[in-house]
């Protein structure tokens, strides 16, 4: 059996990424993901990799663009304001079909906001904050173990589809220390045929299509066909005590863990409630959510943001069940009692009127 070690989320993520084949890291420090570049700067030279602290987030994403275009396994990480700066680069990477891994450890916004955990980047990340018709594959882990596992696998997914992959964590996951079983070192494959400097023909990586022969329309149709294929193949989610549930919570990431203890608590009081947690936020598991929502009395969307995850839930549920929201804004985290109180009150007070 492999050894279980106690590691901070950010460090476990960095180590797992290296074991998953990452040899190039470009980044710029920002709380709460500082441990990623710190760990990378020490660890990458040991495994023959390269660490560069770029002069800005814009520079780091473009360094990743360059490195990945030559077939290298490169990644960058940042937190909300930094990811905003990277959006242009992410659009270029998606447009020129280059695989890259981007880590977003979300913090409170808007603007510089604060440094505490939040989920307010959902729409920016999932719906594509940059320009053009593109999608980024998004994974939202909820434990340090998952954070490590998805960081480990993300390079394979990115190279399989030639598409950027983003891991959407939040300040809690980045900073929390938990037991984690790290995966084995992956053998690094040679750069693929399409990469710069590979193959017999001269490869060109670009997102500019001006000539009438290579119409941008054709390129876009090709991208959309690829996205439809990804939607079919990637549908990750978790169901918790859903079998006999009358009510359903929808939450992801850190919030889903708090919801799990709230669910256990409420089940002790006789409320039959379950949790649906989307793990791949794009492609969102709409069909599975609808299946789960169909027979439920009410759906509760719990998120550390306002009406972001809820928009996707509404698309998925298609009016099959009424939806209520519980939000926490400005980089603060739910506690179990809040969720229990909100949901039990909302269930018991249904059809009653406040009189005094």
């Amino acid at each position, binding site marked *: 059996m492999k050894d279980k070690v106690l590691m901070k989320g950010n460090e476990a993520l960095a180590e797992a990424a290296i074991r998953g084949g990452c040899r190039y890291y470009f980044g710029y420090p920002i709380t709460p993901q500082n441990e990623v570049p710190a760990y990378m700067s020490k660890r990458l030279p040991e495994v023959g990799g390269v660490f560069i602290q770029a002069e800005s987030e814009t520079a780091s994403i473009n360094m990743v663009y360059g490195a990945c275009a030559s077939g290298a396994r490169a990644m960058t990480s940042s937190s909300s304001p930094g990811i905003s700066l990277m959006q242009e680069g992410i659009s270029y990477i998606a447009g020129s079909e280059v695989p890259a891994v981007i880590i977003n450890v979300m913090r409170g916004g808007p603007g510089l906001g604060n440094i505490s955990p939040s989920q307010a980047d959902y729409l920016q990340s999932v719906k594509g904050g940059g320009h053009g018709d593109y999608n980024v594959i998004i994974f939202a882990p909820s434990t340090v173990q998952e954070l490590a596992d998805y960081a480990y696998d993300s390079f394979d997914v990115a190279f399989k589809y030639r598409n950027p992959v983003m891991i959407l964590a939040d300040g809690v996951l980045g900073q929390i220390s938990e037991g984690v079983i790290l995966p084995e070192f992956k053998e690094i494959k040679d750069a693929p045929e399409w990469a710069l400097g590979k193959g017999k023909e001269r490869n060109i990586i670009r997102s500019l299509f001006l000539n009438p022969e290579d119409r941008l329309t054709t390129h876009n149709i090709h991208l959309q066909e690829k996205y439809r294929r990804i939607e079919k193949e990637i549908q990750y989610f978790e169901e918790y005590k859903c079998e006999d549930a009358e009510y359903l919570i929808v939450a992801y990431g850190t919030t889903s863990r708090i919801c799990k203890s709230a669910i256990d608590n409420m089940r002790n009081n006789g409320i039959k409630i379950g949790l649906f947690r989307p793990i791949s936020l794009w492609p969102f598991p709409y069909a599975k959510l609808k299946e789960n929502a169909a027979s439920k009395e009410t759906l509760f969307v719990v998120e550390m943001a306002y009406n972001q995850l809820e928009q996707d839930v509404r698309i998925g549920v298609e009016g099959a069940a009424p939806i209520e929201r519980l939000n926490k804004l400005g980089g603060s985290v739910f506690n179990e009692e809040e969720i229990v109180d909100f949901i039990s*009150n909302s269930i*018991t*007070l249904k*059809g*009653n*009127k*406040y*009189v*005094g």
Partner: protein
Amino acid sequence: MRKNVVVINKERCKSCSLCIPECSRGIIKISPEINKMGYHPIYIEDMSKCIGCTLCAIICPDSVIEVYREED
């Protein structure tokens, strides 16, 4: 029969007991459990007897009690 709901904010209750003689049905009792402030909060013994008169909510000095009457 009406199904009324009384929401008690247990953490805010300081166990002053003003609501107990005020309740026309005598169903409010002091709970043996202890809240975060160290007081014994109130609880409703038999909810089916509640007529939703809101006297407890009116007398409560700390707005611990909220009464919800079933809509007709």
